[in-house]
C-alpha cells in the first residue's frame, strides 16, 4: 500500500508545501521522540511484533495535533534503557550509545523528547529511581555536548517521566521485581533532575496510565492522551 492518505490529505499536504515554500522550509521544526516500547507502540499483552498504527502511537498523535509545520521523528525501541548495557537483551538496548549517532542522523533538531526509565528498573540492573534519573541526566549532557539544534546550538529537551507500572505485572513480575514501587518515584526524581539541568519536564502519569493487561504498556487510549497532552506542552514552550 504505497499511500495511506486520502485525496483530501494530499491536497492539504501540497498546500502546506506551497505555503512553506514561500516562507521557507526553515519554518519546519523537528521533534525527535526518544523512547522505549511505549514509544514504539507495543500493544499491551501481545507479541513483540504487535504494534499500534503510526497514527495511534503517541508520536503520531503528537504530529497530528501539532500540524504540518512540525516533523515528528519516532525513535522507540522495546527494552531500551537510559545508559545501561543489558546483559540479557544486548548492547543495542543502551540508549546512550544509540542516541549520539541518532541525533547526528536527524540534526538539526528543535526539540528532543525523552521518555525512558521503565527498563532500567529491571532487577538485573538493581537501581533505585534516583539512579535512573541520573541516567536521563547523562543523556541530557550528551545532547548538550553534541548540540544538534539549529545553528549548532543545544536544542530544547523535554524529559517525560513514564506512567507508573501496575503492581500486577503477570509473567514479567520476576524480571521487574520491586520495579512498580520504584516506577512511582520516577516522576519526582525526573522532575528534580529536569529542574536541576534546566530542561522541560512532563509527567506522563498525569494524563495516561499503563494497561492492566500486562501492567506496563500503554494502550491506544493512553497513547492518544499522552500525544495530545505533549502537543499542548510543546506549544506552551513558546516558539519564535
Amino acid at each position, binding site marked *: 500500500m504505497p499511500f495511506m492518505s486520502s485525496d483530501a490529505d494530499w491536497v492539504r499536504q501540497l498546500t502546506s508545501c506551497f505555503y512553506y515554500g514561500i516562507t521557507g522550509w526553515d519554518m519546519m521544526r523537528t521533534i525527535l521522540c526518544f523512547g522505549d516500547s511505549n514509544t514504539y507502540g507495543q500493544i499491551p499483552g501481545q507479541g513483540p511484533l504487535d504494534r499500534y498504527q503510526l497514527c495511534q502511537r503517541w508520536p503520531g498523535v503528537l504530529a497530528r495535533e*501539532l500540524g504540518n*509545520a512540525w516533523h515528528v521523528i519516532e525513535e522507540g525501541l522495546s527494552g531500551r534503557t537510559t545508559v545501561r548495557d543489558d546483559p540479557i537483551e544486548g548492547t543495542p538496548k543502551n540508549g546512550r550509545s544509540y542516541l549520539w549517532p541518532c541525533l547526528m542522523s536527524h540534526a538539526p533538531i528543535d526539540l528532543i523528547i525523552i521518555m525512558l526509565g521503565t527498563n532500567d528498573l529491571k532487577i538485573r540492573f538493581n537501581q533505585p529511581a*534516583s539512579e535512573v*534519573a*541520573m541516567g536521563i*541526566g*547523562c543523556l541530557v*549532557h550528551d545532547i548538550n555536548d553534541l548540540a544538534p539544534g539549529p545553528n549548532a546550538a543545544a536544542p*530544547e*529537551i523535554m524529559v517525560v517521566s513514564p506512567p507508573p507500572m501496575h503492581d500486577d505485572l503477570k509473567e514479567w513480575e520476576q524480571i521487574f521485581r520491586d520495579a512498580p514501587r520504584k516506577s512511582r518515584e520516577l516522576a*519526582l526524581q525526573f*522532575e*528534580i*533532575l*529536569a*529542574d*536541576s*539541568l*534546566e*530542561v*522541560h*519536564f512532563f509527567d506522563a502519569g498525569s494524563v495516561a496510565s499503563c494497561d492492566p493487561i500486562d501492567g506496563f504498556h500503554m494502550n491506544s487510549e493512553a497513547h492518544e492522551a499522552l500525544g495530545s497532552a505533549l502537543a*499542548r506542552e510543546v*506549544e*506552551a*514552550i*513558546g*516558539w*519564535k
Partner: protein
Amino acid sequence: MPDMRFAPPNPLRIADRAAGLNAVSVRSYNERLVLSLLLQKEATTRLEIGERTGLSAQTVSVLVRSLEQEGLVAKGPAQRGRIGPPTVPIVLNPEGAFSVGISIGKRHIDLVLIDFVGEARFHSRLPHPRTDPGNNHSRFLETIRAAITMLPETARTRLAGVGLALPRNETGERDEGIHALQEEIEAQLGISLFIQNDITAAASGESMFGAAKSLTDYMFFYLGAKLHGRLVLNHQIYNGNSALSFDVGIDALEAELSEREKPLEPLWDSSDDWSAYRGLIDGWEDGVVDQLKQSLAAVTQFVECETIILSSCVPLGIRQDICRKLQHSLPGVSAIIGKPTPSPKAVGAASLPFSSRFTVE
C-alpha cells in the same frame, strides 16, 4: 575528583508538592521577575517571559512549572492565531495569594482583604482612627482577624502579609502608637506588617491592579481631603522629599459648603451621593483641574508625561467631570479614573506585601 557534571541534581527550586507559599528566602530573583511581569500585565506567555527576562525557554519552563505547582500562576486556554503555533497564556491565579490592607485616614480606618489580582474580598470601615497605645487596638485586631477568617482554612497559609498606609506625619516625629500597633499585629497574628505613606500606597495599588497596570510613565493624583501627586516613571513611584499637597481637596470644598450651610456628611460618608450640592461644586472642580494642570505643566518641563490617573473617594460622576474638564483643556493628555475599589488607599496598602514578597524592586 568526581566529574561535577554528574553530581547529584541540585534543583533550582525545592521540588516538593507541599501546599502553601514558599518561604520568603526561597523565592528566587528569577521567580520574582516572572511574577513582576504578571503583575504588570493581565496575561503573558512563556515566549514573552523569555524575551523580557533574557532567560532560556527551558529555564522559564522550570520557573513557570514551579509557580504553577505553588498555585501562584495558572495556564489559560491556548489562543490559536491565523498562522504559527498557538500561544498559551499564563495568568495569575486569583486564589494564589491574599493580603490585608489598612488605610488610616483622618476620619476613619478602611480595611480590605484582597486576592492576588486585587479584587477586594472583604471591606470594613472603622471610625475613630486612634492609634495611641492601648486604645482601640483590640477592635482593630478583631477586624483584621475577621478579614482573615473570611478566607477558607486552606487559603490562610496564602496570606502574604498586612500592609498599612499612613498619612504623612506633619510633625516628622516617630509615631509611637503605630510602632506599638505593628508589634501587636506581628506578635498576636503572626503576620508581617509593611508600612507605607498612604498616597504612595494608593499609587502602588494603581500600578499593580488598576488603570496603570500596563502604563510605565504617568502622574498619579489622589484627591482626598487635599490633592496629592506622585510621579511614576518606568513603574517606579517617586516619593520625593517634599511630598506636596494642595489645599484644593474635600477640605476646601467643606469650608465652602459650610459657609452656605449645606449638610456636610455626604462629603465623607462614602454614600457616593453629592446631589445636595448640585450647582455648587462646579467652581471647586475647576480649582482641582487648575491645580492638576499646574502640576502637570511643572513636571512636563523635565519629562514627557501624557497620562494622569485620578484616584479618589469622591463620587464617580465628580471624578468623570474632573477628568473630562482636564482632557478638554489639555488636548493630547489622557486623564484616567483610578480603578481599585472600595478604598484605593487600603487596596494600595494591601499591594505592599505582594510587592515585597513577589516582585523585583
